[in-house]
């Protein structure tokens, strides 16, 4: 008996096992890979302080914003400098509804509805004007930049309504439940935290389904070569419009979730906040969904644990990050991890 190569046994074993079993195994691994972090997130409030829970809740909201941006930028290749506007619109919708009609039964639901509807409508308006006129790429990005800049100044200047840079405070807390029967206030703490974890998890599942569907394949094809997709008979502007609206609706929803855990002020409408979201996605690795979530958590925890001296330089660091990411790490942390993993398997 002669052995040609020491590696032959695993090779044979792999061939022998039916492909089906492999797929089932992989599915199990995927389920496990999702349930494990979810379980950890669910256990977190049991082992840590209320402050830590609220902090993580806020960062998970940011992660959801990053997720929505990744759908747009990572998959369809559409870069938006106005994503914070949609997030901010969502947050302001809920906060203002609570401020003016907070005592009415079911006001929270109206707020959440508006928090999704208004960003979607704005996205529909901008997207319809741009995509059907074949305005894309850099041109689209600078239009969103102008949109972001103007929304920012409006929010800062219109103090009677938005509270400007001081923000809104003192409005009744949003309540979930059945009005008049049983309602729970969302004021931070474990309940809000679990709600955010649940919505983020569902959004992630939704996003996964979306990008793995034929629609998702069309998105990636558009990112790679728009013209060719067009020649294949796809309605490229319509596809772009749909993903833009979905992404902005998700951003608006995350804005509504932000209300119980964060501070609603002009800052969350700003270009710099949009920039931060782009950084989260870029650092985590775009076009991976998980990278966006990871990036948001990593960058925000870095910022939270930084000493005051470094916080003074925070935006300088962000700027340098931006340049480095563009020049050296176009695929982010997940990209590096994947490269290392592939090298390890090969080597």
């Amino acid at each position, binding site marked *: 008996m002669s052995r040609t190569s020491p590696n032959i046994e695993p090779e044979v074993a792999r061939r022998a096992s039916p492909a089906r079993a492999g797929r089932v195994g992989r599915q199990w691994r995927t389920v496990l890979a999702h349930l494990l972090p979810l379980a950890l997130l669910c256990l977190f409030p049991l082992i840590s302080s209320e402050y830590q829970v609220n902090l993580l809740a806020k960062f998970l909201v940011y992660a959801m914003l990053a997720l929505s941006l990744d759908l747009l930028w990572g998959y369809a290749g559409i870069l938006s400098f106005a994503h914070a506007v949609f997030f901010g619109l969502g947050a302001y919708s809920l906060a203002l509804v609570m401020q003016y009609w907070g005592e009415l039964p079911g006001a929270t639901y109206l707020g959440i509805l508006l928090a999704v509807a208004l960003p979607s409508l704005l996205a529909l308006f901008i997207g319809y*004007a*741009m995509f059907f006129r074949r305005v894309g790429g*850099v041109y689209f*990005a*600078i239009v969103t930049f102008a949109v972001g800049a103007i929304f920012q*100044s*409006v929010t800062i200047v219109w103090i009677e309504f938005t509270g400007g840079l001081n923000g809104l405070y003192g409005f009744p807390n949003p309540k979930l439940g059945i009005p008049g029967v049983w309602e729970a206030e969302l004021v931070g703490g474990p309940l809000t935290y679990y709600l955010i974890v649940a919505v983020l998890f569902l959004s992630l599942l939704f996003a996964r389904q979306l990008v793995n569907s034929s629609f998702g394949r069309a998105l990636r094809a558009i990112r790679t070569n728009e013209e060719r997709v067009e020649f294949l008979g796809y309605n490229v502007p319509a596809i772009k419009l749909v993903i833009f609206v979905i992404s902005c609706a998700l951003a608006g929803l995350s804005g509504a979730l932000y209300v119980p855990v964060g501070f609603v002020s002009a800052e969350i409408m700003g270009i710099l906040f949009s920039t931060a979201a782009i950084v989260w996605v870029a650092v985590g690795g775009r076009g991976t969904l998980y990278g966006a979530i990871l990036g948001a958590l990593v960058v925000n925890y870095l910022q939270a644990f930084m000493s005051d001296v470094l916080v003074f330089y925070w935006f300088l660091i962000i700027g340098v990050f931006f340049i480095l990411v*563009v020049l050296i790490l176009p695929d982010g942390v997940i990209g590096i991890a994947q490269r290392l993993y592939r090298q390890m398997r090969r080597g």
Partner: protein
Amino acid sequence: MLNFVLTSVLNGVSLAAVLILISLGLAIIFGLRGVINLAHGEFFMLGAYTVWVTENAGLPPFWAGFVLAPLVTALAGWIIERSFIQFLYRRPIETLLGTWGVSIVLRELVRIVIGPEHHYATQPITGQFELLGFSYPLYRIAIILFTAAVVALMVYLFAHTDFGLRVKATISDRGMAEAVGINTSRVDQMVFVLGAGLAGLAGAVMSPVVAINPNMGLDYFARTFLVVIIGGIGSMLGVLGGGSLIGMLEAGLSAFLKPIVAQVIVLVMAILVIRLRPQGIFGKAK
């Protein structure tokens, strides 16, 4: 009434002049390489700071800074172009992100080194222009005349000089331009430096009439975008037309509405213009 109309018109023209001065550099760079330099507003800011710093250093008021500002920003532009933008020309979205990083870094450096306070440079030309009971600040009129001169110079530069010929050749067909011996990478460099210098010049011109602060570039920059979008990207005529239109419109609306409302109306209009004429009002259809 007539005074009010005249003042509004002159306000519009002087705002238009500034916007044109800033937009020129942006549009030239876009026309040449199809990239947008998001740090362009920061060159404007650096120009204004140069004037303020030289003035405080005791150099002859204003004029020293005025000469120095475009040189300083041109140098900054050259460093940035050489250090990384030259590697990104083929990837417009990456250029956008990278230059946005530069923009943040420049803004933050100024904030950290000089501080976030507002500063004002002294006005070199004071006094009012008066005619038959109508008066208007002389310096504002000087801005309008100066912009006209710069635009004329640019037209001459691009239409009648060897440099302009090289730039136009590179824009219309890069490969062919290289084949006939034009160093296109050098053209890229020079155009970028020219654009940065123009933005610095605009900053110097505006330094006595606006609050100098680290974020001033951002304020003007968003409007500069609208100028190139409405006017039609990459053409001199587009910049002139777009700048005049936006300047007049904003000044006209500001006479009756809050400035911020005027800006919102201009933004919505810009989006509608794109819907109707994506090539811009003065651009040629493809």
